């Protein structure tokens, strides 16, 4: 299991424009980090760099003792702006596929469905769901297929106040079980977290 996230002197640029440089972050099991900053400051790019989807100009990203490639394939969940859901598929098919793809099983899926209250949505096509319902569907795979590090890009934005609170409880549970969270946010994160402001 991944024991830590260590970022040292990271620099990232996009389209020839430097976003940030000299960025450092250390996260241990049970800790969360809230990334803040203006639009375009590089929060999403940092999350994608941690996930290995984007190359850094300089610096290092480590995952404790674990091999980075292995960690990214088996220990990281990414919830980006887009939920990765196919509009023509049913919610049930999408959830089942992404759960298995992320290493979960259908028995763990059942409790995730109840916790996110999406059982009545399962037979609907994804295109019929609201933005908040789609986000809950995407978040269900985090619970159904446990992985240590959650990378969340604006996870709360489509959720109403009730579900913001409930997802806060789910994040607390994840940290309590030794997980880690890095979340790019504009609103306050409903859990204790160190704040890393990019390009203050």
């Amino acid at each position, binding site marked *: 299991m991944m024991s830590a996230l260590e970022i040292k002197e990271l620099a990232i640029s996009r389209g020839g424009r430097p976003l940030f440089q000299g960025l450092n972050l250390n996260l241990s099991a049970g800790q969360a980090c809230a990334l803040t900053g203006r639009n375009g400051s590089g929060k999403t790019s940092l999350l*994608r760099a941690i996930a*290995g989807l984007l190359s850094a100009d300089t610096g290092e990203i480590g995952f404790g003792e674990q091999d980075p490639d292995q960690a990214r394939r*088996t220990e990281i969940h990414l919830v980006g*702006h*887009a*939920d*990765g859901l196919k*509009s023509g598929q049913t919610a049930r098919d999408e959830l089942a596929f992404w759960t298995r793809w992320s290493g979960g099983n259908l028995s763990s899926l059942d409790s995730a469905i109840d916790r996110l209250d999406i059982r009545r949505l399962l037979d609907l096509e994804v295109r019929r769901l609201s933005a908040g319902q789609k986000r809950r569907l995407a978040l269900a795979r985090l619970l159904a297929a446990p992985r240590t590090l959650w990378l969340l890009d604006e996870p709360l934005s489509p959720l109403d106040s009730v579900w913001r609170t409930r997802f806060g409880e789910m994040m607390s549970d994840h940290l309590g079980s030794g997980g880690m969270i890095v979340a790019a946010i504009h609103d306050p994160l409903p859990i204790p977290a160190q704040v890393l402001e990019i390009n203050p």
Partner: protein
Amino acid sequence: MSLAWELLKRETALSWGRGGGPLVSAGFYLGVATLLPLAAGPEPARLAAVAPGVAWVTLALATLLGLDRLFERDYEDGALDLLTLSPLPLEFVCALKCLGQWLATGLPLALAAPITEIALGGSPTLAPLVLVSALVGGLAFAFASGIGAALSLGARRGGLLTAVIVLPLFTPPVIFGGGALDAFASGLPWSAGFVLLCAYAAAAIALGPLAMAAACRNALS
């Protein structure tokens, strides 16, 4: 392996929805079989002479159905990010996506190819070779076209760019397959063209996913 099977099932179903399936294939060939006599004249001898080549070129062009969405939709809706964060190498994921595309589009087209060839007046003795060539050639087309689909990821008017990239890659299999069919119909040795077609398909299957994965990583970054 079960993960690969899950992805293959999903990709086949999604490709089916993107323009694959037997009805679309049958409709495509039906259109060709209807339009060709109108354009080239109804003389049976003339149609019979071009029937194998027409069936073959139709297969190549029909492969472009839904091709521009092979990676683009995953790129737009974030699924490509999630597919990358998996125990399966991205190269293998790309190969499975192409295989799913072939199962949904190429396989029905290959099964319909000999029927079209006979419907246009071609020799029934040629039909088995048309079928086998279409099966092998369809794989070559699917994996070669996947390179174009991946390279055009994120580009404006990506569908047009995909066709521009892909059509030159189709030239060798069209020549090899068409040559084998023409040689067979003329009573000449045909195996060389067919073997070259198989070699091209093998190369496309082996090397195509490497290029696709590199193009996908570049687009994601």
